């Protein structure tokens, strides 16, 4: 009896804490459908009159589609590069025999210790010197370099668990190393690649400091930075418009999360368990 009461109490507590996580999102949605006047009078109640003016306004004054397209390009580009070159490096480190492979593995782990913030300044100067500032490559390459370590280390562990016979069979069947890698090994590690896709997507889509500093032209800004600049421009008076811009910018990730919540949760926890 006492146990049951305790369990119900815990459930109530968890539900209340859950609301604490959801409420701000509800509030944001709520403010995006209110007129400016109504918002200041009753900030929390449901809108008396649901208006979509804020969204129309947001589409006019906030370059959502441009930022969205840029975010898509940055994320897709980084994703492809990391998965392609990162998995090849991980494969080479775990299954090929060469003298420096152990050193190369420790070297790549350095990427987990050097945070991106540390080298912001020289990176900024380098990007200007290389003449790639405000191009898609100018952000994709640094994002790739800083996302590489985590992916390589995880895939390395995965490649280690595959049996050696795979390559032997491929070799006997007359595959060269590239055919054996791209036709046989890569399809086998699909689950690990899927996990990496989720992790890289989440990291790159929401990345802030690098994009904020390296990209100085409006036309090349991704969503996170475009939104921050939009807020700084319009100031803090028109919360209906702010709410609409927030909802618009959050929709893509929320749709992705809603359609693959389980995979995303598994991917995000994979790191902790694999260690």
């Amino acid at each position, binding site marked *: 009896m006492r146990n049951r009461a305790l369990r119900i109490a815990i459930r109530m507590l968890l539900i209340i804490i859950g609301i604490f996580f959801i409420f701000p999102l509800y509030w944001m949605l709520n403010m995006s459908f209110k007129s400016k006047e109504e918002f200041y009078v009753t900030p929390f109640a449901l809108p008396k009159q649901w208006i979509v003016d804020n969204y129309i306004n947001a589409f006019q004054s906030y370059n959502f589609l441009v930022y969205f397209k840029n975010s898509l390009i940055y994320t897709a580009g980084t994703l492809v590069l990391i998965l392609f070159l990162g998995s090849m490096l991980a494969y080479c480190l775990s299954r090929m025999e060469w003298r420096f492979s152990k050193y190369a593995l420790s070297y790549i782990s350095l990427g987990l210790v050097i945070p991106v913030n540390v080298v912001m300044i020289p990176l900024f100067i380098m990007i200007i010197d290389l003449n790639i500032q405000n191009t898609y490559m100018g952000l994709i390459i640094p994002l790739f370099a800083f996302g590489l370590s985590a992916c390589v280390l995880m895939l390395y562990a995965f490649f280690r668990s595959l049996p050696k016979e795979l390559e032997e069979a491929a070799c006997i069947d007359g595959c060269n190393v590239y055919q054996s890698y791209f036709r046989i090994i890569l399809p086998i590690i699909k689950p690990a690649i899927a996990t990496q896709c989720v992790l890289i997507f989440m990291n790159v889509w929401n990345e802030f400091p690098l994009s904020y500093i390296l990209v100085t032209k409006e036309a090349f800004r991704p969503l996170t930075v475009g939104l921050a600049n939009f807020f700084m421009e319009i100031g803090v008076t028109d919360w209906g418009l702010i709410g609409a811009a927030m909802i618009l910018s959050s929709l893509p990730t929320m749709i992705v999360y809603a359609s693959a919540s389980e995979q995303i*949760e598994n991917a995000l926890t994979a790191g902790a368990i694999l260690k």
Partner: protein
Amino acid sequence: MTRFFSTNTSIFIFAFPALFIFTAFVVYPLFPEIVISFQKHNGFSSQGFVGFKNYIEIFSSNSFWKANTNTFIIVLLSTAAGLPISLLLAFLLDSQANGTRRYFKAAGMLPAILSVTVIAQMWMAIYEPQWGLLNSLLRAIGLESLSQEWLTDRGIVIFSVAVAFLWQYIGLNTLLFYTGLKSIPKTYYEAALMDGAGPVKSALMITIPLLQEVIKFVLVISILGSMGMFAHVEVMTGGGPGYFSRTIVYELYYKAFMSSEFGVGSAVAVIYVLQCILITLVLNRFVAREKIEF
């Protein structure tokens, strides 16, 4: 057979592109950074070496020490408050039925999947002094005396920003701990129950020791994550009022990109990377133990 595949050409093709870009954009920049930290540099060109002048300047500036204190406060809060709260929530979650669990997971993950900009702006609305959620709530329960200017009060501002930051990742950390809890075989608890251990005792004697791999992982990512906090500060306060909510990364950003003193900014960055290395060494030395196999 793998030897057959491991020709010099194939190793080069597989390893070189990634290693080259990694070296050029992650490792190499540390060297110019150290060089710039001894120069007067405006971002476009160097105006000559100045010896330790930049370091002397940061060590004698109030904003640098404030930034360090603030960063320390955030690291302390996320480890001493954030982690125990997440661990406790994971324990509570473990005692619940599927429905509650799914609801809580989805709710807790929501902040973690949204972008920093959205979270920071949302918390600006929560902290707004006149109609903001927090002050309205305090007024509603008759604690008006506790209402504050959350983002403009010099003494409080860093805690306000820290709460927004912790709030974003508590759900994710809970999920990480919960996944760790699930991977511990149930038989251990049955044995403990037979020996007469209660839930608290078995949590302390079984779960926490067996969870140390996960705890270490979450500890490392929380410490390194909170040491690098930048975006929340930039969006919510811009480091203000004055320099009272600057973190160490904000300080380096401010020096380099807001006041065009790239030399001074690089000196801050060098100190910061030394701190990161020191913390990683300490964590590896004291937190790492033998790996546990079930």
